[in-house]
Each structure stands twice: as C-alpha cells, then as structure tokens.
C-alpha cells in the first residue's frame, strides 16, 4: 500500500469531484423536469400521448447508460448533416453530451417514480377535494403533487445515488470527472488499488450525504 500516493492524489481527486457534482446537479435538475413532464403525459387518457411517454421510458430504462452516452457522443458526431447545424455547438462539447445523456436517462426513471406515486394517491383524497368544490387544477397542485413528492422520496433518493455513480461514465467521453482523474493518476503511477480506494471513498461519502438529506426530508414531510 502506497499511503503517500493516496494522500497526494486526494486534492486532485477532490478537485475532480467538483466536476462530478456539477454533472450530477445539472442532470438531476433537467431530469426532474423531464420526468415530471413525462409522468404527467403518461397519465393522459389519450393513447397516442401516453404511448409516447411509455416508449421514451422503455427505451431509456431498457438500454445501458454507457450505450446511451456513446450514441449521443460518438454516434451523433458521425452524422455529417448535424455537424453543420447550430446543434453542433452543444453536441461538440463532451460536457453537454454527458449532461444530455444523464438527463434523459434519469428523466426516464424519474417519470416512472412519479407516475407510480401519482397512482398510489387514494381516490378518496381527490374526491374529498372535489366534494369541497375545489377546481381540478388546484386539486392537482395542492393535493396530488405534494402527496406524489412525498411518496416518491425514498425511490427518488435511490435514483439520485444511482445517477451519482452513473456520472463516472463521463470519463468515457474524455471528461475529467472523479473517475477520469483517478484513471489519469493510475496511468502515470500504475497503482490502481490505492487510487481507486480514495476515489471510492469519495463516492461513498457523497452517498452518505445524499442518503441523510433524503432521510431528513422524508421525516420532515411525513404525515
């Protein structure tokens, strides 16, 4: 065990953790909006609209994240037409390609989490609102959404942790995130165990924080 290397690589790895956190927050914010949007249209009565949401979640939950990020980064880069459009300004950057892939992926899982949360709301609660003469719009915002958020917290906390670990795939499209920098240090020191232990420790610490924040929120919003 080369403890000196472990200590020396810590500042570099912590620096890279910043990129990992940036990727994670951006993907979670975009993913939450995408997920909410698709969860709502999934509950739509129109079969064409809810099939569309179903296919989206089926495709992104049914394929590996690595494949998705490769298709978006290397695959789209091969289409010559795309390179002449304004979209290329975004797709040219590995950073945005990673965020697009992560957002679409976590969006698919989030939409399923929220959909099932909406469906577990007891009809009685909505009927209670209706019997008081509250409009269906206010029932949705004041009754359905708050209950759905509370219901989905445990599952969503899980999804945040999964996504946090998923960001390590950013290193496959040249980004120097926590895993990317760990691999870089290994490429010059040839000591994978020491460096990966430190990197793994940082991931564990992040999981610890996320886990406790979710636990706190669960308690706060319990009823």
């Amino acid at each position: 065990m080369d403890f000196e290397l472990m200590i020396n690589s810590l500042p570099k790895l912590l620096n890279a953790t910043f990129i990992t956190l940036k990727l994670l927050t951006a993907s979670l914010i975009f993913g939450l909006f995408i997920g909410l949007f698709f969860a709502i249209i999934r509950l739509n009565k129109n079969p064409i609209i809810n099939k569309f949401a179903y296919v989206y979640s089926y495709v992104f939950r049914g394929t590996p994240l690595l494949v998705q990020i490769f298709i978006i980064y290397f695959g789209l880069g091969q289409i010559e037409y795309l390179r002449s459009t304004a979209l290329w300004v975004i797709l040219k950057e590995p950073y945005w390609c990673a965020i697009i892939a992560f957002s679409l992926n976590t969006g698919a899982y989030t939409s399923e989490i929220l959909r099932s949360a909406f469906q577990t709301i007891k009809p009685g609660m909505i009927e209670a609102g209706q019997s008081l003469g509250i409009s269906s719009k206010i029932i949705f915002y004041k009754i359905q959404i708050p209950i759905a958020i509370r219901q989905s917290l445990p599952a969503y906390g899980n999804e945040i942790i999964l996504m946090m670990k998923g960001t390590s795939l950013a290193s496959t499209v040249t980004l120097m995130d926590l895993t990317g920098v760990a691999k870089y240090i290994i490429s010059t020191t040839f000591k994978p165990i020491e460096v990966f232990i430190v990197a793994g420790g940082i991931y564990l610490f992040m999981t610890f924080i996320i886990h406790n924040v979710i636990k706190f929120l669960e308690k706060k919003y319990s009823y």
Partner: protein
Amino acid sequence: MNIIKKFSLGVLITLFLSFSANADKIKIGTEGAYPPWNSKDASGKLIGFEVELAWTLCRYIGQQCEIVEQDWDGMIPALIMRKFDAIMAGMSITAERQKAISFSQGYADEVASLAVMKGSDLEGMDTPAGINLTKPNAAAKKALKTLTAALAGKTVCVQTATIHQNFLDSGDVGKVNVRTYKTQDEVNLDLASGRCDAALAAAVAFSDYAEKSGKPVVLVGPTFSGGAFGNGVGVGIRKDDTELLNAFNKAIDKARKNGDISRIATKWFGFDASM
C-alpha cells in the same frame, strides 16, 4: 445432495485441469486495438505485427504461449498483478514505465506524428521532416516553437497513458488542450467529427485509419522520436521475472538475425519498422 457433490467435484476437476494446463504457458497481453501493431479481424481474432511476432518469439523460446486481450489503460497494472507475464502492445520503452516494469531490448520503432483533417489551418507548418527530442538540435527547438505557436488554444486528442499524452503534458509545445481517450479508435472518430483540432499518435495509426475509412486525414508537422517518445517498442516484463526477460532478449536476438522481425514488420507496416 448427491448431485451437488458430483457437480462440485466436477467443477473442482475442471478448475484443476485448467490451472495445470496453463501453468507452463507464457501469457502475453496485448490491446488488440492499435493497428497495425495489434488489432482484431472481423471474427474477433487477434492479428497484427506483434501477434505474429509473439508466436515467432515463443517458438524461439521453446515454450507454449497464450495471447490475452487487455484494455490499454490497465495494461501495466494487469502485468504487475500477474494477469499475464509479458506485454506486447506497441508499448514504447520510457523511463517512467521502467520505474514500474522491465523492458526487453526494443524490437521495433516508429515515429509519432500529428494528424489533422484536410483543410485544417494547421496544414503547411514550416518544420523539418522529423525531430529527435533526446538531444534536440537548433532545428528541433525551432520546430517546437513553431508548434507551440500553432497549437496554442487548440484541442489535441490522444489515447490515454501513452507516450503521446506524456509529450503533450510535458509542456514542450506549451499549454494545449489535451483530451484523452480510452482507445485510438475513439481518437480517430473524434478527429474526423471535428471535435479535435489535431491528434497525436504513431504515424502509422493515422495512415492505417485514413486508408481503411477513406477519411481525409493528413499528417502535419514533424515526426517525433526520442525524449518523451522513448526508445523503441519492447516486451514489458515484471521486474522480478529476470529469467523470462533473458529468454525474450535471446529470442529477439535470434529473430532479428534470421530476418523474422523485419519480414513481419514489412508485412504489417508496409516498411521495415524493426530495430
């Protein structure tokens, strides 16, 4: 219960047989993604200069060999952890790597070069045909200055953990935006897509890609050798494995004397890259 007993006995026997069968085989690790040094054919079989040379060297050593595949970025750690006994993967002999493993004498050498897509503004740089960085002369120093100016602010792509990455990190050509990839294939893809302004690798890796893909990839600037680019490509072997090191050195001597290395090199590179 009987079935489980029989089954586990079977597993044990199979394990024992597979261990004992491999006991005296030399395992050689290669990447299989760096043509023409080593690559794979359509059926997934390992081919290339080093694969053919490995079989030849094993014949001279007089021992059975097995060639195994290993991702480039884990090559040296895998050797140290005894996943295999020798590396033949276009790995240049550098001082940095020699801190971790030993190398046999070099068996082949070829130069590195920058590549761009046709029409790039990096084309037509005024530099000599080739520079050696071990003891850079005035012309080489001037060429490095020209490159520093031309590459300022550009994105240059390389495969990770290579001599090419070491060179760009060394600061000899100033502060360029270095982007690293897991394989040379991915470097080529992003060079063609325009995400990289230039790429740095073995010159043959680019000419091989240009030929196979039909993409207008052109070599620019001088070819590089010496210095960060090391002293030829050799067989990487664990430091405590001196017996195997001697065996490989002797086998390379014999193969060179009989003209095997230059024959195989000419077959795969199109020119004699042996040394």
